[in-house]
């Protein structure tokens, strides 16, 4: 919703969905068209100059999109980079097509990938290990004309995909007006302290590192100087409550649960430090992180995935290998110099100018135009693969170098021009 209004102002946009419900405000921005993943209306879809597919890890939202994207090449925007779980669940559990999953693993990771996949299917390897070692990101961009990620670190792997250019764009975010930002800072200044207010936001899964966070807080001599609120749905609330109890943090840690938009506004305007850890990371960019900066909040993040690419002077990093010690060091540093952390949050807020949706749209459309220019290369490679595969069946490579050279030159001529030697 950050990008769409801006994109629709300068381009004719049609939103395709296989979902039953679409947020009412989206109808105001662009026409909605529906498709069935098993029988997409290609004629209507082909009316567009280019298709942009937003893919992530959520099977209900993204399986149909991925299915269409494999047939009609377009730009794939990756909202998650670790897609192993997505493909395993889709191919093996839903489609009952173990072979397709094994082939995908072999396609990108060779024999090692296939063997690990077989071991995983047999229960011999953990899901976490598969996700980290075999993210299957490239399977999502297999037929793409281009891939957009919001994580610069992902480019290296993506650019190994033949004929598919990739770009890392800053995650789009429309920052609040300066006056509103100033009001938020003023609200924070009005909060009596200590104790300082710490918050964790969002869907609080195991990878949000609540256990080491609680452990760090419990082991901190100055822990009474802080109050921690875990805002959002917990993956296992009773487990977290047990931890809080066990560590003697009942007076320090509270669980306010899911917050409304108004409550979020109040909470972020009156807290002092946001803790936004992820490990392992699925590689995704964090809208919450940009939101924290929009309130001028300093943040603790894990030095991994997208978070590792954040400005060094706008965030405090926690290393996965020494989480408890790093968290404690940062909290002590905070107590020693709250102003330094406040300045960190302000620098984060300033960095939001790089995330302006118009900047994002401009970069995305430029990239899409370049990818379209290169699309004939995708056709050339598809033809070369097809011909190469056929020739391999009956022609020893050494038998006819002339033929191979001639075929190569003609494919080049057909798709790229007549610069033949």
């Amino acid at each position: 919703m950050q990008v769409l209004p801006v994109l629709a102002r300068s381009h004719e946009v049609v939103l395709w969905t296989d979902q039953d419900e679409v947020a009412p405000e989206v109808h105001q921005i662009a026409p909605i068209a529906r498709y069935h993943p098993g029988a997409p209306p290609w004629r209507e879809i082909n009316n567009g100059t280019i298709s942009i597919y937003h893919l992530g890890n959520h099977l209900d939202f993204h399986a149909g999109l991925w299915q269409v994207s494999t047939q009609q090449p377009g730009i794939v925007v990756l909202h998650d980079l670790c897609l192993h779980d997505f493909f395993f669940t889709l191919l093996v559990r839903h489609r009952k097509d173990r072979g397709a999953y094994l082939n995908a693993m072999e396609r990108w990771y060779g024999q090692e990938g296939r063997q690990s996949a077989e071991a995983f299917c047999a229960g011999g390897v953990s899901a976490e290990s598969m996700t980290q070692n075999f993210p299957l990101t490239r399977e999502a961009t297999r037929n793409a004309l281009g891939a957009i990620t919001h994580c610069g670190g992902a480019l290296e792997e993506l650019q190994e995909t033949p004929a598919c250019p990739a770009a890392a764009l800053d995650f789009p975010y429309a920052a609040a007006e300066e006056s509103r930002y100033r009001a938020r800072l003023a609200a924070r200044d009005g909060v009596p302290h200590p104790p300082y207010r710490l918050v964790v936001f969002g869907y609080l899964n195991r990878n949000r590192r609540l256990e080491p966070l609680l452990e760090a807080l419990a082991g901190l001599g100055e822990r009474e100087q802080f109050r921690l609120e875990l805002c959002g749905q917990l993956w296992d609330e009773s487990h977290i409550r047990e931890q809080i109890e066990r560590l003697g943090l009942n007076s320090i840690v509270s669980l306010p649960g899911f917050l409304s938009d108004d409550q979020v506004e109040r909470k972020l305007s009156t807290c002092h430090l946001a803790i936004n850890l992820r490990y392992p990371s699925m590689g995704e960019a964090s809208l919450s992180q940009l939101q924290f900066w929009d309130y001028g909040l300093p943040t603790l993040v894990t030095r991994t995935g997208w978070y590792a690419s954040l400005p060094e002077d706008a965030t405090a990093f926690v290393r996965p290998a020494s989480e408890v010690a790093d968290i404690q060091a940062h909290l002590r540093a905070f107590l020693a110099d709250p102003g330094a952390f406040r300045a960190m949050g302000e620098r984060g807020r300033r960095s939001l100018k790089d995330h302006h949706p118009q900047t994002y749209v401009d970069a995305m459309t430029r990239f899409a135009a370049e990818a379209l220019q290169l699309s004939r290369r995708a056709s050339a490679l598809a033809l070369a693969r097809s011909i190469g595969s056929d020739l391999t069946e009956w022609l020893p490579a050494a038998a006819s170098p002339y033929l191979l050279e001639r075929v190569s030159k003609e494919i080049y001529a057909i798709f790229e021009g007549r610069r033949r030697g």
Partner: protein
Amino acid sequence: MKILIATSGVPFIRGDAEILAESLRKALSEAGHQAELVVIPFKPCPPSRIPEQILACRLLDLTETCGVRIDRVIGLKFPAYLIPHEKKVIWLLHQHRAAYELWEQPEAGDLMHYPDGHLIREAIRQADRELIPEARAVYALSENVSERLRRYSGIAAEPLYHPPANAHLFHNGSASDYFFCPGPVNSTNRQWLAIQAVAQCRERVHIRLGGEPASFPQQAKSVNKGKWSDRVEWLGRLSEEQKRDLYANCRGVIFPGVDEGYGYVALEAMLASKPVIATSDCGGPLEFVLADQTGLVAHPTPESLAQAMDRLWAGRRCAAAMGEAGRAHYQDLHISWPNVVEKLLC
């Protein structure tokens, strides 16, 4: 000269392009050359296989046969016109229309209905843009085809007109009380437009539709139930002789089609000294119809077409005069096979 005519065709399908290729071969032979057809089988579906067919053409070697040099290759149809030859001349009948003008007419073109349609379209367009200019000269079937080539591929081509098959056998007979609407019955020939026009006519106009229906149009089903159904006659498939007789004895000829590559119907009407009613978007025939002199040009609506039909129906003398003017105009155009041969071999 030893000349190969490179064209492509769908096996078991014979149409105007096949007749043209054979006529060209005959004309070249009559001019004293050795000419043969090289017909590449073309399979447009699925479109993903089209690049392979382009490549197959590019790999053919037509430079010589049994040690004897091929002096000239004349390319006619996609992808055969992409076969390389040092002295190739292209006489473009049409490009792969689904990748060009029919992309915008999904009911007529097929490529747009495929998920990889965009990619294949771009591959075809790129191959045409890059490889058509290899030819030492590029001619087009008509101004309409030439304009498409310029618009889509940025390549100039001189229109080169040729006579319809058996042009010398067309003749003028009486002017009976019917309009003739020839051609295969299909969506692009839009016979339904002429049928709907009959219902709008003030005069008691009759039309005869000649040609085999590819599918019986929905619009025709409804007209058969209408009060004017006795004024529309479906003749079905016609022999060449029957067709010429229908031309010879009609009041005028109607061509309501859309974006036709070449104006065969107009030329045949002119040879039979008959006026032509053409629609303003019919393409090739408009190159030969002089509005209000050799025929009438109507908007592609039943109302406009009906007005034109009424005018010729009521003005028998005017219709005859336009027909004569059409015949004279045909002579002025100097459309002949020797001209075609001379151009292609110069």
